[in-house]
């Protein structure tokens, strides 16, 4: 199978860094944002920001997938 592009992989790494590896930086109660403890707010924010990163990856990957599909059609004919 074709591997995803480097750009798409880097975009996918952003949510991993933000919500997983960096936990000790944001696991705190204060400052509260919109009345929510900071860690809670941070993770909810990434429910919105994660899809944004992946939308970028989608824009990168979709043309490549279409090209791959066309190539395969060509081979079949």
């Amino acid at each position, binding site marked *: 199978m074709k591997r995803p592009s480097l750009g798409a992989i880097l975009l996918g790494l952003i949510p991993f860094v933000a919500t997983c590896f960096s936990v000790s930086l944001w696991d705190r109660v204060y400052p509260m944002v919109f009345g929510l403890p900071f860690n*809670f707010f941070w993770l909810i924010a990434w429910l919105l920001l994660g*899809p944004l990163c992946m939308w970028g990856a989608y824009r990168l990957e979709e043309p490549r997938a279409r090209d791959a599909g066309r190539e395969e059609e060509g081979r079949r004919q």
Partner: protein
Amino acid sequence: MSPSIVALAIISAIVAVGSFVGFLARFHHTMDLEQWTVGGRGFGLVLVWLLTAGEIYTTFTFLGASGWAYSRGAPVLYILGYMPLMYVVSFYILPPIWEAGRRHRLQTQADFFQVRYGSTLLAALVALVGVVCLIPYLQIQITGLGIIVEIASYGAIHRTPAMFIAFAIVAAFVFVSGVRGVAWASIVKDVLLLFAAVFVGFAVPHLYFGGIGPMFAALARERPAHLVMPGATKDLGHAWYISSVMLTSLGCYMWPQFFAAGFTAKSGRILRRNAVLMPLYGLTMPLMFIVGYCAVLVLPGLSNGDLSLLTLVRKSFPAWFLGMVGGAGALTAMVAAAIQLLTGAMLYAKNLFRPIFAPRMTEPQVETLARIMVLVLTLGAVLSSVYSSLSLVSLLLVGYAGVAQIFPGVVLGLFSRRVTTAGVFAGLAAGLALAAFLMLRGQDPYRGLNAGFIALCLNFAVTGVVSLLTPVRVAGFDEAAPSLAASQSSNGTGLN
């Protein structure tokens, strides 16, 4: 009328409507083996979305997440952490899985291993892992149904008989409807669940504290330690968070039923689009945590955290509303259980029993065996829920420790030409052995790390080393010549 009768009557009505929708869906389509399992590969965007959502938003979200927020505190945030990440992972692996499925007419996760690695034994081991790990997952649904009936009857009906009744309904539901029926029932439950979660999540803090902000302010004043990791626990700190989030986000699509959902899509493009959009559906999830956090102050001292959401609903609202919430929860448990049962039974019959014990079985015989397995698995899960006392979230983590061990074989199978059958086999065996060893000795977490994650690391290492030392038999899906379609049509089943 007593409140328990009102609540139970409404729950029964919701369950009946949901099942009826499922039954109806069946009459629009005749079902053969392939339809029964993968819905004919013709689902569009909306239906795939609902099907995936129906599978992912389970009793675990509803009762388990609030239960851990109540009993453990901040470690429950690992659920919010892994949710967007599991879709990130699916973005990269589901489209190629779908592509392989289309080319080789794959129906189950074990089929994937059979074709990619050319080994019936490896496929059977993967099927075995899938079926065994489904039992704790099924157990979550059964325990959840039991809790719902117990609380809605105000303790009059005990959990054990309730679980037996509920699962007779689920098994019947599975027999007559199949995937399409489940998809329609899941639409009913999605609407109800969303309504219930949003209303309860906002109304409960408003009722007792005047809003979500004041509730957190009160909690930060009275129980500040509850709001940061490790919360009310000793050993669920940051290392545990990172290792659990990694284990669950990598392992999520290794559940055989989610993996197979990749086959039901119309195109790889739909799967990519879903991967981008799905976390937005999860925006209702934090409300469940909020309910659990509220219960810390409103209902201190509950013996079982998983009871907190429904107990709080019962305390705060009239009986008919408890019935609505309980009904949504019951339907959710039924839908999830039905999908798990269908997948588990199919895996057992098709990838474990037939290739190992009865290679000559015909397609209709496999189907009959799958139906028998639905009953066996249901009963197995009911019995183990009667005897186990793990919390809903802990049950899921046990399942994950096992099922995530399938990940290296999948991801390397898709993207590496150097990985070998022996390597994957050795890695899987080593990972499973270490996970089982640590868990059975009660060493999870081990030195602050999730035991399943440690096992996954060993699994990757062993897979890599053994692959380097052994010759490649099949280098990728392009070379996987004897496809399943060929072997099946030679049985004269006419799947084409």
